[in-house]
């Protein structure tokens, strides 16, 4: 920096201080939404140490700070993928076809809680939950209905399924078989990320070792038979929803990623190969600048980790490709129409950050499941950003901004510090066992709540600008109890019609595969699914063999 620059900067600082003396600023210390201190002004000296080619470089080149493709959205927009599913397979199938007709470009299946936790609808623990937060799937029969008249070689399907991911993936492959489509031609994603279930989301079934085996079995199986499938979506979304900061979201997600790569390497798989199929899933929170920096930092750090820690050379295995969902936790039940604006800003951040696919929340999601109308507005929000805003016409428009590059550095560095700490604890599995990431997230969540209550953080309509209004009379989507009864009836009918001897034999094969340390579980699960063994039956066998996880709570 030249002397002229220094003098001018000093003069500015003095003038600004003087102005503040007269009229104090709104806060003594400004911070980002994620709690990073934010300066009044960012200038060239804040990014003095940045080397363009090493740290930023061109889109499509290592370390991919500016994006994973060279021309980004000038070619094709991100995949507009709305997470949906409720009640039974029939109702959800109708919702998917409604979304596809309106221009959604990828499906995203929400399963109900019994499905996510490996219980059939008639299990006692499933009472009251059927079809509530997603669609109920008990067997291949339900999956066939779910994708009825949807050609699986033409859509890409993302499934939010973790502990029993193998079973649902097997069902999807079988539906494709029946449509005459080979597994090679299937594209989509299973979430399959158990570590964040232990940390933040809570839909785990099995203990860590067995869970990691199921995951690496899927990596291996898909590498050979479903090559276009994203075998995992390593998710920071739920970590953020549980209350983490932006830095923690990046740090814990990438630390989870490291644990998966290590586990797969241990089974003899090559990160240059399976690394291509790893995908990520981030949150889009309120602080637009910080969020843009967050995506850029995550991309750069992952590329560096894959290259330096794991010696990866295949560029496709260095790229962090990610899906984004706008932050459900920022939606308010008060004045819900305001949520449309929040979602717009969050979606904009993810596009400016270079997302590969996006789900925009519907305004009524703090109240209940979204209605068709609000889902349509959410999708239109993405389309307006894509077609009207202009931000998609040049690549990574925020690059070179002093504050954005500076925050990108800071988020990366803080995330590295966390990852080093987790390394010192012996890796993410050990850290989870000690309750470390859980505690860090809870501390952040609690201080965020306190900041709202002391009005340090303003939430429009909640702690400021409240109006007296009532949500009564607003139309909400409801899933009534009869859905569960219908689903149980269907399940029992199916069980009376299938070949129960074949089911028993093939479930025995699943058990044998589970007992064997070396056998890949996927083929046995596929065979069982094909003869309509239910998800609950398959997971039941695995529960008996693997045991169940009990959460580790550190409060």
């Amino acid at each position, binding site marked *: 920096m030249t002397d002229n620059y220094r003098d001018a900067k000093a003069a500015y600082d003095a003038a600004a201080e003087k102005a503040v003396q007269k009229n104090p600023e709104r806060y003594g210390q400004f911070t980002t939404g994620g709690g990073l201190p934010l300066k009044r002004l960012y200038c060239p000296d804040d990014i003095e140490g940045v080397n363009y080619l090493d740290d930023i470089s061109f889109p499509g080149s290592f370390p991919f700070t500016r994006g994973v493709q060279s021309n980004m959205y000038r070619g094709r927009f991100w995949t507009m993928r709305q997470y949906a599913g409720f009640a039974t397979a029939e109702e959800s199938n109708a919702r998917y076809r409604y979304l596809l007709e309106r221009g959604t470009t990828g499906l995203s299946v929400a399963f109900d*809680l*019994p499905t*996510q*936790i490996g*219980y059939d609808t008639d299990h*006692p*623990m*499933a*009472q*009251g*939950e059927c079809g*509530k*937060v997603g669609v109920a799937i008990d067997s291949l029969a339900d999956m066939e209905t779910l994708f009825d008249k949807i050609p699986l070689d033409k859509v890409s399907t993302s499934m939010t399924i973790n502990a029993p991911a193998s079973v649902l993936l097997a069902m999807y492959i079988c539906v494709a078989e029946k449509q005459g489509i080979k597994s090679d031609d299937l594209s989509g994603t299973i979430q399959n990320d158990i570590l964040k*279930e232990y940390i933040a*989301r*809570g*839909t785990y079934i099995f203990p860590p070792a067995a869970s990691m085996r199921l995951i690496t079995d899927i990596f291996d199986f898909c590498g050979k038979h479903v090559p276009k499938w994203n075998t995992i979506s390593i998710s920071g979304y739920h970590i953020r*929803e*549980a*209350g983490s900061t932006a830095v923690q979201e990046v740090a814990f997600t990438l630390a989870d990623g490291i644990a998966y790569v290590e586990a797969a390497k241990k089974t003899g798989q090559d990160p240059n190969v399976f690394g291509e199929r790893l995908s990520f899933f981030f949150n889009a929170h309120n602080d637009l600048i910080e969020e843009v920096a967050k995506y850029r930092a995550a991309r750069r750090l992952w590329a560096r980790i894959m290259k330096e820690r794991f010696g990866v050379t295949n560029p496709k295995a260095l790229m962090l490709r990610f899906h984004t969902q706008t932050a459900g*936790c920022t*939606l*308010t*039940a*008060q004045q819900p129409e305001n949520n449309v604006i929040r979602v717009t800003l969050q979606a904009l951040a993810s596009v400016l950050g270079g997302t590969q696919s996006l789900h925009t929340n519907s305004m009524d999601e*703090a*109240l*209940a*499941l979204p209605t068709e109308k609000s889902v349509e507005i959410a999708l239109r929000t993405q389309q307006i950003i894509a077609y009207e805003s202009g931000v998609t016409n040049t690549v990574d428009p925020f690059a070179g901004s002093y504050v954005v590059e500076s925050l990108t550095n800071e988020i990366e560095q803080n995330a590295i510090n966390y990852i080093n700490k987790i390394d010192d604890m012996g890796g993410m599995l050990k850290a989870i066992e000690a309750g470390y990431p859980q505690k860090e997230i*809870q501390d952040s*969540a*609690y201080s965020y*709540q306190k900041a*709202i*209550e002391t009005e340090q953080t303003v*939430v429009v309509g*909640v*702690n400021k600008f409240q109006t007296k209004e*009532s*949500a*009564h009379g607003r139309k*909400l989507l409801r*899933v009534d*109890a009869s859905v569960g009864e219908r689903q149980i009836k269907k399940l029992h009918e199916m069980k009376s019609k299938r070949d129960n001897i074949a089911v028993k034999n093939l479930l025995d094969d699943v058990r044998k595969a589970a007992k064997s340390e070396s056998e890949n579980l996927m083929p046995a699960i596929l065979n069982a699914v094909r003869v309509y063994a239910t998800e609950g039956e398959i997971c039941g066998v695995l529960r008996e063999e693997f045991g169940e996880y*009990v*959460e580790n*709570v550190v*409060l």
Partner: protein
Amino acid sequence: MTDKIRVVIAKPGLDGHDRGAKVIARALRDAGMEVIYTGLRQTPEQIVATALQEDADAVGISILSGAHHFYFEKVISLLKEKGAEDIIVFGGGVIPDEDVPDLIAMGAGAVFGPGTSTGTTIDWLKKAVAKDE
């Protein structure tokens, strides 16, 4: 000095979203209460047994999956069955305003929707427990 308020905070069913439950548990602790935290995946029977064994003044149910009708009804009726209707039941989570009157009619003391400050819950709980004694 009065006796310490003891509250069970429970996550019924399969819903894994425990941010709210943990935040309220900490806030109640910081307000001087003893909070018995059950963890995830509790059946109504487990929640009620816990409340009885722990001599709880109140049971707080956190639920975001939409299954609130089912679980409130079950917990409240089991408490009645055990002659423990004096134990206050309250709750929070993703519960639409229009469902609240139903839950109150079942016997819930209060239902706190999204955006409720922890202070509101604490004040209500202190008053409700005092009235109960």
